[in-house]
């Protein structure tokens, strides 16, 4: 079983956290922090396994991680998982991300953490490996994207327009403008 999947950057900022066992938010943060400290002090050319996360796991659990450029992908697994198998799985995960985002980089994960979750959900479900065949995974993701696009249709047009506009590097102030009175004003209109 996989107990948790964590992705954080070289500074320990979480980019994705998925716990398959319940921890409250504070504990989750502590786990991320501890895991980061354990993993980050290791050099790049050492092995990808380590024991001894005190918060997560126990004697039966291992942290298996891979370090890609600015990101750490850490899986916390018990002894029923094959160590090398999980390493492969991380590779599959990253390659899938790469396909979905076209040359994935940290920014993609930062801004589309929800999408990353959806992708991960096609690989792992409830702590168990769901699918390891990348084509299969990609197909499913594609189909679901289509479904979303279809739904979006016309109703999403304004939203899309807005987000397009927003992405056009408009100064921050405009974006942060709030129009609290507007809905009230509309409500007050009488017919």
């Amino acid at each position, binding site marked *: *079983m996989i107990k948790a999947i964590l992705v954080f950057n070289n500074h320990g900022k*979480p980019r994705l*956290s*998925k716990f398959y066992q*319940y921890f*409250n*938010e*504070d504990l989750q*943060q502590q786990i991320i922090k501890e895991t980061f400290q354990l993993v980050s002090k290791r*050099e790049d050319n*050492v*092995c*990808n*396994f*380590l*024991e001894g996360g005190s918060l997560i796991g126990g004697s039966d659990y291992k942290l298996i991680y891979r370090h890609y450029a600015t990101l750490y992908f850490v899986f916390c697994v018990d002894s*029923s998982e*094959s*160590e*090398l*198998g999980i*390493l*492969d799985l991380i590779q599959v995960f990253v390659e899938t991300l790469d396909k979905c985002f076209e040359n994935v980089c940290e920014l993609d994960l*930062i*801004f589309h*953490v*929800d999408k990353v*979750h*959806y992708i991960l959900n096609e690989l792992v*479900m*409830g*702590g*168990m*490996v*769901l*699918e*390891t*065949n990348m084509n*299969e995974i990609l197909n*499913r993701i594609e189909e*679901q994207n289509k*479904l*979303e696009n279809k*739904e*979006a249709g016309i109703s999403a047009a*304004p*939203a899309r327009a*807005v*987000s397009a506009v*927003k*992405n056009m590097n408009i100064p*921050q102030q405009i*974006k*942060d*403008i*709030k*129009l609290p009175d*507007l*809905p009230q004003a*509309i409500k007050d209109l009488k017919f």
Partner: protein
Amino acid sequence: MALKKVKGNIERMFDKNLTDLVRGIRNNKENEVKYISQCMEDIKQELRQDNLAVKSNAIAKLTYLQMLGYDISWAGFNIIEVMSSNKFTLKRIGYLAASQSFHCDSELLMLTTNMIRKELNSQNQFDAGLALTSLSCFISTDLARDLSQDILTLLSSTKPYIRKKAVLMMYKVFLKYPEALRPAFPKLKEKLEDPDPGVQSAAVNVVCELARKNPKNYLSLAPVFFKLMTTKTNNWMLIKIIKLFGALTPLEPRLGKKLIEPLTNLIHSTSAMSLLYECINTVIAVLISISSGMPNHAASIQLCVQKLRILIEDSDQNLKYLGLLAMSKILKTHPKSVQAHKDLILQCLEDKDESIRLRALDLLYGMVSKKNLMEIVKKLMLHMEKAEGTLYRDELLSKIIQICAQNNYHFITNFEWYVTVLVELAQMEFGSKQGHIIADQLIDVCVRVTAIRPFAVNEMSQVLDVYASSTQFTIMQDVLYASAWLCGEFVTELQKPESTLISMLKYKNLPQKIEIVFLQNILKLYARCLMLYEIAEDYDKIDGMYEVTQKKLRNSLKSPEIEVQERASTTLMMLEIVQEEIMKRKEQKGNLIDEHEDESDETKPTTKIDEEHTVAASLMVLFAGELNPVAPKAQKKVPVPEGLDLDDLIEEPSLDESSSSDSEYEQMGNLFYKSEQKPDRERYQPELTEEERVKIREARKHEQANNPHYLKGAAKRDNDNGSDNYQVEDIPIAELALPVQLKVLSKRSDKYLNLESGKSKKKKSKSKGKEKRKEKKVESSTDGEDDAPNVIVSQNIEIPEGATLSDSESSHDNMDDPHRALNIDLDLPSFEESLVGHPKLTDKDEKKKTKKHDKHDKKRIKDKKSAKKSPPQAEDLIINDLLLVDEVEQNQQDDSSHVKVQDEILVGDNEVQEKKKKKHSKKDKDEKEKRKHRHAGDGTADAGKDKSKKKTKKSKRKEGDKENTKSHSKNVGKLKMEFDTLVKTDDDYEEAHGISTPSKEFR
């Protein structure tokens, strides 16, 4: 209406979406907290809107904030709202948030049941998939119970995508709702041969997880897995299967033998390292499980070790790590073959990777011999000087000590060396927190190895000297504790007690725990010095010593620690009394000298003080007697006084009392179990006849025998035939003449202890006559006890199976482990068919569920039929596969006969069942409630009745075949237990299943 829509859209235009939130947080690095709290306010605003799109936007942002550590449970209701949307896009956001923030104790979950059911039955596979994925993260017992049927139907969905997810989901359902396992299992088994590789892989995955915790229930699937293993090429699945076999082989050695060949082939043929590694691992497990006797063993081990060597030599650190890991498994059973690779392992100690060094250290443990111990330890100590990181240093330290101390210091030929090493370690690692280990070792060695005492004590006094003369910490404080104690305890071995006393008096700033040891031992040293001076009649020195000592002690009187104060004042008072006495003697002596001044020299020797008459001697009486180590289990061996039968009921039972006494030894948890006492409980209390009581008692004993968590006495445990015919009178009971005399009863386990100690004694005396182990002198009333059990032994005292240390400690954890409840023998047809009417339900529930049950019934009947057929099929399969031709097959046959017999009970004995049902429904009413309070005791009572009923039935039946009846009664026993578990309430199912066969953990 239209306006509302427009309004929503306009708002959305200006709402911040997730991207904006992320960007905002990045732009407000300095006051992130403030920015986020502002965003939270916005989100709360948005959640108040009616527009689901707005809400989902808010929820998406919340999900992001949750990752950053913000609690979003307050938005649970809104999340559910978004989940209920018709649009996949929005729903998806809701389900994601739910999977991230909900957990099985969320109260809101009950709101989701119907919604999720709707999704599960949706036409769109992604709707169902979404719900399944999310549900897997937060499923609760209630959800599992209510949805298990729906998920079960999904197993036969036409879409592999759904099947796959449903299969995995079933595992989560089992964990929360173990009762689902039995009805679902046949389907799950089918999925092992699903045409879709993904589904198949998922099913393998689930069965592996199940089997990992309760392997014996899945032995019958071995042929299926064997087939899969030899025909499939999906590495992922192969790894799982091979891992599963690793778990199964310890239970069925014949399986292991069959496995070796294909596994060896795989090892030779595969190019995938992950697969290769798992194959090696399983081969190792097989080899461990087969206790020698096969000639080609050596070859297999050799192959494994060779392959592992290749892995370890690989430049890939991962392979190196795994190689070492697997090597340590071989080490336990075949140390010789690993020892051949000592060079390689020592080399790994130099590795820059800490994980690898730690693994290598583990291996080192098995590498040492008498010859190379010193060399290896020296290397390790060199390492320690260089090593960085406290974790690793601590590990090194404890490993050094472990290596040396293993097997009662088996490998140590020179204890002077060892003491020196310990002192060196203490000086090297004075900052470490591992001091207590070293201190314990020092004390242990000195106490147990008499010959080393002079050396060790003087070494210790040096340590104290160094400590006294330097101003900085140069040694672990804990070691001072050991030194002070040893110097005091074995003061006669000290060369210069007075100087040691002076060093000890210079203590400063010690922790309380150590200071009190100092105080106590200062007194011991003082007594010794006093004795020496008295004999020498050097009263001036005594005075001087008294002055110094009492001055220091007066300082300690001011200590803030109460314990220190107390000891200091006691010591001080004692010194004063002694000093008074000394003064008297001094005067006397002065007088004597005056008197005899002119007399001849001949009389003088008579005034010479001998040891026994010194004042010091009376002080030393306080510390007289040898301290001996006590075996951790010694307490257990104190014989039970005559006339005390621990199994006897203290009072003749009304049922309630028996239950309370049951709960005492059955489940401590019961003490804390909130019993919902109903006022009219007494009314239902049935009168028990004497016969019934006997039955109850027997049943309870039987249960105790089967209950792995019941700590039995050793004598009882030894009685393999079960405790049914166990007679208290048969145990030899020694008289207990307390308080002075303590007779230690020899038990069977003692024999091993004696053997072992004898062995190790021999070995030691061979290796060096120097070390003698102290035997505990057992003061006993009888004379023939020369070979009284040696109680000191040993780190490796044999632990009775029910009473392993971990067991008693982690019993609480075990209770939490959901896998215990999944320990269900799946080969047996469900007994619940016959009992379906009886599950414990309140009347309301019963009404609600009758419909459902009817459905269940039909289904079960089907299942039953298939169960009837399936065993022979399984048999055929086995024969075809030529897998487990001999024993397993027989087992299967047995099984199938069980099944038939069982079916007869179920189908043929309808009458009896009717009767039973009636009886049950009568009894059930009153027992239901009682069970709540005392499931353990009552369960057994029931069991007894059931059993006896079965017995009478059985005698009516024509089968006289002994084998059959025997196995049958066994079956009934099992089924009875299952029945017991069935009627338990949900929250105590764990306890209930504790009764059934023990789940063994794997090494």
